[in-house]
């Protein structure tokens, strides 16, 4: 079960207003990392629109995801500059490294892999983002290093907690 207490707080912040639905869903996405069914239902009943309408918004915009995007969502930029500098090859390399396909998340929910239309760092193409970190001038050989770095970061974090 998903704890929807946070949804109520987000709804209050946006006055449960119908016109703020995109902002509400963006905040929910940020908090839960994705939009679980329970969240969509909670939003629907509070702002007084059908779940179908909420779902149509949640599936129209690319930022929203209906399944977990992973603790480190990896996004390969597929803007024009990145594309002509080989972003497809980076996606494939990451698919091989992580053993998942584009649009999927690793079973332990550590990494998610997808493309993004353009992050506006075209001067550094090709670009990979992980969360809000930007990795410019990426190479096929750098994908493994990037994954390794975040694995190590998480491990270190876990150790410091214990």
């Amino acid at each position, binding site marked *: 079960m998903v704890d929807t207490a946070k949804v109520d707080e987000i709804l209050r912040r946006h006055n449960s207003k119908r016109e703020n639905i995109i*902002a509400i869903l963006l905040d929910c996405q940020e908090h839960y990392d994705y939009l679980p069914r329970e969240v969509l239902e909670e939003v629907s009943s509070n702002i007084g629109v059908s779940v179908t309408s909420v779902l149509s918004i949640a599936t129209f915009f690319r930022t929203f995801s209906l399944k977990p995007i992973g603790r480190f969502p990896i996004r390969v930029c597929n*803007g024009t500059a990145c594309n002509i500098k080989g972003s497809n090859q980076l996606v494939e390399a990451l698919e091989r490294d992580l053993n998942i396909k584009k649009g999927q998340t690793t079973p332990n929910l550590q990494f998610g892999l997808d493309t993004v239309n353009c992050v506006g760092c075209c001067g550094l193409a090709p670009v990979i983002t992980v969360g809000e970190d930007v990795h410019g001038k990426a190479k096929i050989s750098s994908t493994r290093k990037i994954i390794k770095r975040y694995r190590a970061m998480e491990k270190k974090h876990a150790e410091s907690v214990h």
Partner: protein
Amino acid sequence: MPRVSIEDLKKIRGNGKPGVSSKKFRAKVLVCAGTGCISGNSYKTAKALETEIEKQGLAQQVQVVKTGCQGFCAEGPIVIVQPDGIFYRGVGPKHAPKMIEEHLLNGKPVEKLMYTLPGQEHPIPLLKEIPFFAKQKLVVLRNRGAIDPEKIDDYIAADGYKALEKALTLMTPEQILSEIKKSGLRGRGGGGFPAGIKWESCRRAAQHRHVDPVLVCNADEGDPGAFMDRSIIESDPHAVLEGMIIGARAIGCKEGFVYIRHEYPVARERLSKAIEQARDYGLLGKNILDSGVDFDIEVVRGAGAFVCGESTALMASLEGNLGEPRAKYIHTVEYGYKNRPTNLNNVETWANVPVIINNGSKWFASMGTGEVTENPWEGSSGTKVFSLVGKVHNTGLIEVPMGITLREIVFNIGGGIPDGHQFKAVQTGGPSGGCLPESLLDMPVDFDSLTEAGSMMGSGGMIVMDDQTCMVEVARYFISFLTEESCGKCVPCREGLTSSLEILDRITQGKGSEEDLELLEEIAEVMRDCCFCALGTSASNPVLSTIRYFKKEYEAHIKDHQCPAGVCRELIEYDIDPEKCDGCHACVPACSVHAITGEVKELHTLDKTECIKCGACIEVCKRQAILKCPRSFAA
């Protein structure tokens, strides 16, 4: 800081912040904190420089300023030392001690960190002498790299909010409208509609209907390969706000929105900060500068839909609905957001407004092409910001006067094509634009010339392509992008794109037929005539322009089953050039499918049946010994 008066603004401009000692520094170290340089750790560089300045006892004399995007992203992280005007590239934290000691203590700039032209020996110390910067004309980006975008006083000290003062105290709304009209300013978001005419229509509609008009700033920069708006907001957010407040005064708006992409966290944060600061100073809110004008701005996040860059789709999404466009026989200046008269302009357009008010329409119209004072449609005045990216030496953000040639942009500013490759095309206008060939390099860059050539100005993406870029694949890429981004509301767009993509997929796989080209052109025509919004009507530009200028490449794919650029994977295979391979063995561990074998210092061999053509070996081979050969279809 409470509300400021016009007098206070003058004080800030004259002698530093009132109440705070106006400390003079003998030098400023400007560290680029645009998204690009941040990714290269420029924050750490700034921190290291600050620590070092402190350590070497220069804290009273030298100031570190974190600025917005300096434009030369390829060379980041960038540091500029003023007033000397020295440009440093690739500056990491480890360079800080040497830089501070040699340059700021001993007055001897560090050559090692300076920019050197490709193939040259001696570096160019001065920013203004580096070709990338020398040919540019900064109007919109006037403050780039010069001020701290997070400090309103920095903006004010750089003559910020001076135009607002003028617009509020010395000009009537009609005078502002007339000035913008005479300047010939045309919308920088893509369409090129004259801003003054739009403002006037919106004002008139609002007065006629007795409904409060709304102002919108479109910062939903969706064109792939473009980052003008992001950089403008990151480097000078107050310029956009000032433009909007002046627009609000001219049109009579009390309420404004900035619709900004979710993918731009840094820009969004700086913009929100700027709005708060402007509110604190009373430059937004009630009774701005005691003029009786009320206006406030709200930031709204987009959620990643390309079609929301279209004005009616954007407004639908502002209302909390699906971002689907509607037919525009009723203009948004009359019935837009919540059916109120709505004036939408893009970030760059707004950032132009304060300069026009400060320097006058004549000055603005003197830049660019055509005679626009009487009729803005007669030319393209002012400058344009472009993101110059792709297969070009100097990638980054540039601002040039309208009418400059593509050749000057690509070869003088951009420094030409790297790695000894040949120029093939430059793509402008995003997915709605087209690819222009070498024969058009001397064409002036302005709204009308680009449209005539089958492309468009668009928001300013300029992607350079070389002989290793396949034009059929480029067309396929854009159509695939649009297929995903089409909202699906109207049939010609939804079905036209899907069918075009199927055909282009076929051609890139070597399975196309000669009739396919005709079919593509026919679909393009139908879409141009029948689609609902500009996404659909212009969607065929990438296909049509590539067929128009690069038909031979299509024919090579269709008739000879070959991809001359060596991109389309189904049509090539990898092999090792025995002349070049020196057996360095680097490719062997790089190959994830173990298709390459060989002993160190001996010729390696590649098993074509195992090879997945992933490119990993090409990347690591220093001798360019991996070849992409046309695939043999025999047997």
